[in-house]
């Protein structure tokens, strides 16, 4: 009896060891465009080939390897479709064919982006909290931003000299948030210029920026009660070409000799050409960009520079609107969170624990 039981156990063990499995499952937490294939077959296999057999298409080989066990993700499928797979394992004298099928299904959330979502909710929540606090009368301190305070001085100088102001809203299109931030500053500047009766020239690189800038400047003149002084031709399109645009602006600077130049928005290699030409004409210059590698050129050649975040804070700073000032406090909270995460991340990396990094980077499968 004992011998029989032992033999039976031995046979079951051999059977388990020899068991070949091949499964296909819809990838979790994705857009329904991938299926996970997992296989485990006898280590005696020389070659493993996995194919996908679609209804109206020929058999497609997805993977060829010699691993007896493994996993593979088939991407770029269509959601809510049934897919059939075949695994063919080749042995010395034999081969084995296994089949599996699965249906793709789109889930309602990208789990890999959970870390990103939580951080975003934290920062946005802080911004909304401080906006609410501002609405209820809480006052927030904001430090002086010299570049924005100087706007009045620049306009005054232009008025005294009887020269125009040049405003360049960057070289990116309207889909760049820096351009939108630039247009908000333009709105305030144009209103001041209208009050002082100073001409403002706004050359644009893209047509959509042109349309938005025209509207912004016109509304600013309207708000100042000086619609009669508004010149639509002062807001114009130059060219889409990067250096053609720069050449055009340089020409305007050298011919019209504006007393004040404002370079606000996204700039690239042409930043120094613009700023240095403006410096040569003796204009007072203020620049602002979030392009970190162009900031040194502006710092060297301009009288005032708005660095990174200051460009986005400009609208709040200039309008002195309590709600917008409150949102700036939310930025500071976000910076505090990031500083704490960096310190925590460094400590965890030293301790060789990368869970936090993987969570934030979205490595959850």
């Amino acid at each position: 009896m004992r011998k029989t039981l032992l033999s039976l156990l031995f046979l079951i063990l051999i059977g388990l060891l020899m068991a070949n499995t091949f499964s296909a499952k819809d990838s979790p937490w994705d857009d329904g465009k991938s299926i996970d294939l997992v296989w485990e077959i006898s280590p005696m296999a020389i070659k493993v080939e996995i194919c996908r057999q679609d209804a109206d298409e020929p058999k497609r080989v997805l993977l060829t390897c010699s691993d007896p066990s493994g996993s593979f993700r088939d991407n770029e499928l269509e959601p809510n479709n049934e897919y059939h797979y075949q695994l063919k394992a080749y042995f010395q004298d034999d081969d084995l064919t296994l089949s599996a099928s699965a249906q793709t299904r789109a889930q309602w959330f990208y789990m890999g982006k959970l870390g990103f979502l939580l951080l975003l909710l934290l920062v946005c929540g802080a911004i909304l909290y401080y906006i609410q606090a501002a609405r209820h009368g809480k006052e927030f301190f904001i430090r002086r931003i010299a570049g924005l305070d100087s706007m009045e001085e620049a306009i005054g100088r232009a008025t005294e000299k009887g020269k125009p102001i040049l405003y360049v809203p960057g070289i990116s299109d309207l889909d760049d948030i820096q351009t939108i931030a630039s247009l908000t500053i333009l709105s305030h500047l144009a209103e001041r210029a209208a009050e002082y009766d100073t001409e403002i020239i706004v050359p644009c690189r893209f047509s959509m920026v042109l349309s938005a800038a025209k509207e912004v400047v016109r509304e600013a003149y309207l708000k100042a009660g000086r619609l009669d002084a508004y010149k639509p031709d002062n807001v114009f399109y130059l060219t889409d070409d990067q250096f053609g645009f720069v050449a055009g602006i340089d020409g305007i600077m050298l011919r019209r000799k504006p007393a004040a130049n404002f370079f606000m928005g996204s700039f690239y290699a042409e930043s120094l050409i613009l700023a240095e030409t403006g410096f040569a004409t003796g204009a007072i210059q203020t620049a602002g960009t979030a392009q970190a590698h162009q900031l040194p050129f502006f710092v060297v050649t301009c009288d005032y520079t708005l660095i990174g975040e200051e460009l986005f804070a400009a609208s709040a700073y200039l309008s002195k609107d309590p709600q917008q000032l409150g949102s700036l406090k939310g930025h500071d909270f976000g910076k505090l969170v990031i500083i704490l995460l960096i310190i925590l991340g460094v400590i965890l990396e030293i301790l060789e624990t990368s869970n936090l990094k993987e969570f934030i980077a979205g490595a959850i499968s």
Partner: protein
Amino acid sequence: MKSSAPLIFAFIVGIIVLLSEFIPHSPFNEIVSTLEGWFMIISGFAILLGQISLIRMNTHKIVHKLDNWQYHLAGLISFGLMLALGLLWGMQETPGILGDATGIQAWLGQKPFDYLFENAYLPLSATLFSLLAFFIASAAYRAFIIRGLESNLLMITAIIVIIGRTSIGTMLTGWLPESLHFWHFPNLADFIMEFPNTAAQRAILISAGLGIVGSSLRIILGIERSYLGGDK
């Protein structure tokens, strides 16, 4: 309605695009690809708006003989010439309305559009970019002055990076033994660019990123309205 319609539209579209970043299920993924298609179409049409503005502005200055009207005439002529040449005879392998200009190609060596592109536009464009070299020299002469601790540090790092990024840096310290390889100018320059420079750039990127989040949130919620032309 005129002032609230854009705000409502901005809110709805902003929230949908934000949600689609996290929700893979349809219709969110389809909405985003539709919006992407619309953007491509609008970009194409928007080019026309710019050309109309360009022609209008230049024509006005020419007709009223304002200051420097000759430059505006030259600009319009150049614009018209390239447009006409491209339309009539095409460029590269693409034929124009009048064909491939085989006669002109035999004389010029290439199509008129390509000829002007390579011999007029290319040199002009490269020349303007090359102005950077001169402006860097004059800006460096004017701005790199030793005044205090910060300007001293700036000077030292500038010298190391300038020398390290040239063949001279390799020659000056190439003889250093392996144990002192860190002090090899190109390696020092790479170290400065990779660590202190990258750290500073990342800090600016992070704060700019937060500024973008705050700015975008204000626009989506309608708190920020200057881009539409007016405050509340």
